[in-house]
């Protein structure tokens, strides 16, 4: 939210944090990032969707940690992950396991291209745009959309209702 404001007033450069998952590069708005920490132990949550790795203790706050690769269908590469990006998304604080945190991108809005349109059923709304960094393509993500945080509750409720009915 606040980042939109800044981009409106400043009009030009926006900052993104880029990171890699498997072989691919992604970026999220820097203002959504609270901090980056070294990978830590998590406690698994039974019955949670598979992309939830568990919960962790961030200086007294209990935070869910997710594995975006499972959600996005990227081949997991268990051994290489080394950091957790803590993001503040609306009312939710979430930790995201990544293989590596690369750098902060200063991106002029004109340099961000629309994502290539693909005919097909695959959901791509969580990709807000693409950016070419030298020879590499960086995908800009909307984490909240990627995790479908909004509709998740509804789905969970529906399944529970169906079960108990």
């Amino acid at each position: 939210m606040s980042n939109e404001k800044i981009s409106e007033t400043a009009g030009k450069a926006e900052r993104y944090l880029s990171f890699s998952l498997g072989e691919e590069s992604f970026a999220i708005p820097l203002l959504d990032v609270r901090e980056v920490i070294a990978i830590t132990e998590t406690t698994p949550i039974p019955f949670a969707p598979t992309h939830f790795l568990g919960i962790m203790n961030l200086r007294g706050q209990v935070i869910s940690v997710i594995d975006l690769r499972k959600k996005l269908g990227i081949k997991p590469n268990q051994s290489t992950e080394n950091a957790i990006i803590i993001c503040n998304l609306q009312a939710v604080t979430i930790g995201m396991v990544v293989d590596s945190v690369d750098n902060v991108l200063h991106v002029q809005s004109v340099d961000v291209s629309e994502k290539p349109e693909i005919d097909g059923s695959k959901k791509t709304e969580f990709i807000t745009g693409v950016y070419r960094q030298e020879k590499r393509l960086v995908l800009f993500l909307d984490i909240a959309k990627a995790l479908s945080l909004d509709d998740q509750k509804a789905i969970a409720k529906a399944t529970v209702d169906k079960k108990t009915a």
Partner: protein
Amino acid sequence: MDDFEKEMKVGFLEEASQLLADTEQCFLDLETNTGDRSLLDKIFRLAHNFKGSAKAVGFDQLSHFTHQLESLLLKMKNGELAIVSQSVDLLLRCNDHVRMMLDGLRDNLEAQFDCTELLNEMQNMIKNGIEASAAPMAEPEAEAEDMPPAAELFADDTASAEAEVAAEQPPPVVAASPAPATSPASTTAATPAPASTSAPGAAPAATAAKATAGAVDDSIRVSFARLERLLNYVGELVILQTVVREQVSRIESPLLLKTVDQIGKVTKEVQDISMSLRVVPLKQTFQKMQRIVRDTAKSLDKKVNLELIGEDTEVDKTLLEKLGDPLVHMVRNAVDHGIESTSEARLKAGKPEVGTIKLAAFHQSGSLVIEIRDDGAGLDGAKLTQIAIQKGILKPGTVLGDREAHHLIFASGFSTKTVVTDVSGRGVGMDVVKTNISQIQGEIQIESQIGKGSCFRIVLPLTLAIIDSMVINCGSDAFVIPLSHVHESLRPKPEDIQNTTGLGDILLLRGENIPLFRLADILGRKRATTKDNDEIAIVVRNQEKPFVVLVDDIIGKQQVVIKALGKEIRHIKGFSGSAILGNGRPALILELHELIVRTKTGSANYNNKSMVSA
């Protein structure tokens, strides 16, 4: 006046200044925004709370004055009296007068005040409306020589304000016992602390008045968020300190060892103190009810006994603050509406002459439960529906089930009493109760049987609380079980666990046959390879039917701070939250009953797959 009463009164004064500041803001808003009904509702609620609390602690004059004010507000609320600057002005003057009384009471708990002028004025306005009251309003001003208007009184220093005691209201304050010297709030009066730090909502004039009085409020209000942050960091400190202690054992330095030892002690102390900042036993609040029951019963000429159960149950301070007012209302309601009006009616129904109200508090399935149970006449669903129709709350011809009908008592403006009394009848009490309880995410359940009595159950979430818990192991992971759920734990002999077709595993426990579940199964995990006879059975009896859960091991008993799970996973059934254990890792707090229900409905099997692949 005994110490306990004094303490209650002082507590009330503290609370009252806050209420007063809120009210004043509302009055001022009202003047600029006369059309806002919600403002009036809020003021009315505040005034009602104020009156109730004042009465409860025995400030009769204050409660009498507020009662009159409330009547005036009701007129305005019902639109019978216009909200113009004249009426708002009167309200503000009343507010000032109340503050003056509070200031006076803070110095002397037995102070008496002259309220006749404002009372007359209010009476006038209630009776005659605004235009008519304009003329008589001049009268009191003519008498201003003996009775200075409130504003003037208020600007005076407290000593002289006290001197203005009306002649017909004995005893004169000057001669009253020197109560402040021993009252807790004024013990600090000896130290020359700046008086302006007290009563943050007070106007400058009040502060000036207090400067001479010197009674200083020695407690401060701290926001919950701040406390939460403090606790988080203290928790972190404890964990870091354990790490340091482990590391230091490898270094041979006596001084370092000793220092780390001391840090450990200090940390423990800091942790204990910061934990204790949040929880308080219900005792004081519960005991306050004794007085309320006694007074209410007396004024209604009823015989009622109050039984207190679970007074030592600890409650988060923030919860307790919000609980006080609703409890007062509900207990008063139990005496007024619950218990039959006459002893004859009770005897006729085959009940003892003296009515009983049981006030109980306990932890249950991850909630704090407070029960107010009376053995009175019970709620009559049909009658409630009828009244609601009369009052225009329901459409004529509506038929409700008992449960819905019982909940009618929470409707704003609903009252079964036809006469407005000091105790009840305005139809605002239960409305306040509901508002306050839902503010703290609580829920009120009603159980009532005609002729047998009613039970009001306030169920509050534990998100703010600290609980005693048992930490157990399932495979390599630790889980937390609220100790209140654990009835007993034992190591069963293999032959006591019988597997049956259809009923599953059954534990034979001293003549009882109790269904048994394995924690790994109900969590949808693979069973650990440990043998059955190493496992420990936890017997849970807080539900309707007992059951046993077999866990791998008990790690220990400890107090934990409940941390709510994030929104993204909160909907998952079976976990009431999480807690951070001594090793710094979070563990889930299990809601065993929910987990079992989940298993029975088959959703565990469904999710089994996802757990294994994760």
